[in-house]
């Protein structure tokens, strides 16, 4: 499988219910988190598996490729 492009996640805080599901499904080493029970934002993720976006019960995680392009994981 070709290596995925690194992405940066954004969280729509208005919809976030701070449930922690995104951290639970994240394969990163410890510490790829914010203080608000979410995965890290504004930090490149080079795994780019998008499991955090998929698990979010309220679909409030989005990402941009580090190159700047916005993507929808379901399209």
């Amino acid at each position, binding site marked *: 499988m070709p290596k995925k492009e690194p992405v940066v996640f954004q969280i729509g805080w208005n919809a976030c*219910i*701070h*449930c*922690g*599901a995104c*951290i*639970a*499904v994240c*394969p990163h*080493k*410890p*510490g790829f*988190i914010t203080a608000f*029970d979410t995965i890290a934002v504004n930090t490149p993720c080079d795994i780019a598996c998008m*499991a955090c976006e*998929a*698990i*979010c*019960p*309220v*679909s409030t995680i989005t990402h941009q490729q580090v190159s700047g392009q916005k993507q929808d994981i*379901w399209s």
Partner: protein
Amino acid sequence: MPTTSFDIVIIGSGPAGATTARVAAERGLKVLLVDKRQELGAPIQCSGAVSRHALEAAGVDPNQEFIQEAIYGFGIYNQAGEKTTIDYRQIKPDEYGQGEGQLPLGYVVDRRRFDRYLMTQAERAGVEVQLKTEGLGYQSTTNGGCAVQLRHFNKTFEVKAKVLVGADGLQSQVGKWAGLQTHIKLKELASCLQYVVDGVQTNGLLEIITGQHWAPGGYAWVFPKGHGYAEIGLGVARNMTRHDAQWHLEQFILHSFFKDRFKNYRILEIQGGGVPLAAPLKTQYADNLILVGDAARHVNPITGGGIHTALHGGLIAGNFLADLLQSGQKPNKQNLKGYQDQWLEASGNAMWKLYREKTAIFRNKDIAQRDDLLYKTMSDYFSPYSEYKKI
């Protein structure tokens, strides 16, 4: 903090952490219990259902401080609304009910009050408790113990312990510190959302609605919540649907066979989370470290229930650590494996069996067959004759 050396340090004061702490302290160990939150239990990520047996077995008094409503049985529905009722008020009227000499089967608890109650019981047993305290890391030391770094109101400090207990939930960082294989697959973590609502009638039963149409890869629920309130929620496996839990919950409320029953619903609270429908962690220990509760994935893979299993695991962990440390044995991984062995013997092996049953259901590619199997499995699971009655 005056003391900096403990027998055990526990990170996370949910049901598993607080029970481990209380039991260990009752057995004479010196225990520090920390939680990063300022109020335990919040934000709520749980429907709060727990059996009376589970509380009693863990030495927890069913206290009005945390009980929201008594439960007497189950209503299991298939996708079309056909129902299997398992009401213990009818099955065993001498034992279950609201009358004198009768008892409930279980309760729906308020996790904020429940978690605080369990922490208080631990504190009264002699545990030192610190809220607003997060764990930063740990290292085993040459004397056979470990050093644990903590931060409390922005002040970083270090304590010594013989064993660190990771009770930090599904998002466990402690397990990752130890290098344990904690990663959960997307298809094995149900994405859940629930509304606490007014205006929806319930009658003392936990109602579970199965079927791909309403909750692909999971199920929907309607639970009594006390004071005339109810919880309506569901969990979905995201490998089985393009829509999120919120979308499915709206569909369920507005279009299911319950739509008339739900028509006057008013949302009072919104809660959610990831619920593992997965196997327990294969390795729940390392040098100077064990995991309990959600962090060890002590969750029923069929129901997603985790309070009973957390209390039970905490009881085993607290007693095991007291036996180990008081006998002077080293808390290395060879010896701490005994905790996992005890847990497997007591309930883990049954949980593995449930996991294989659940996996077999969802491996079936025929949706109608899968729905039938899930409905039947759920109905059997809650029957008084189930082999899993106390898991």
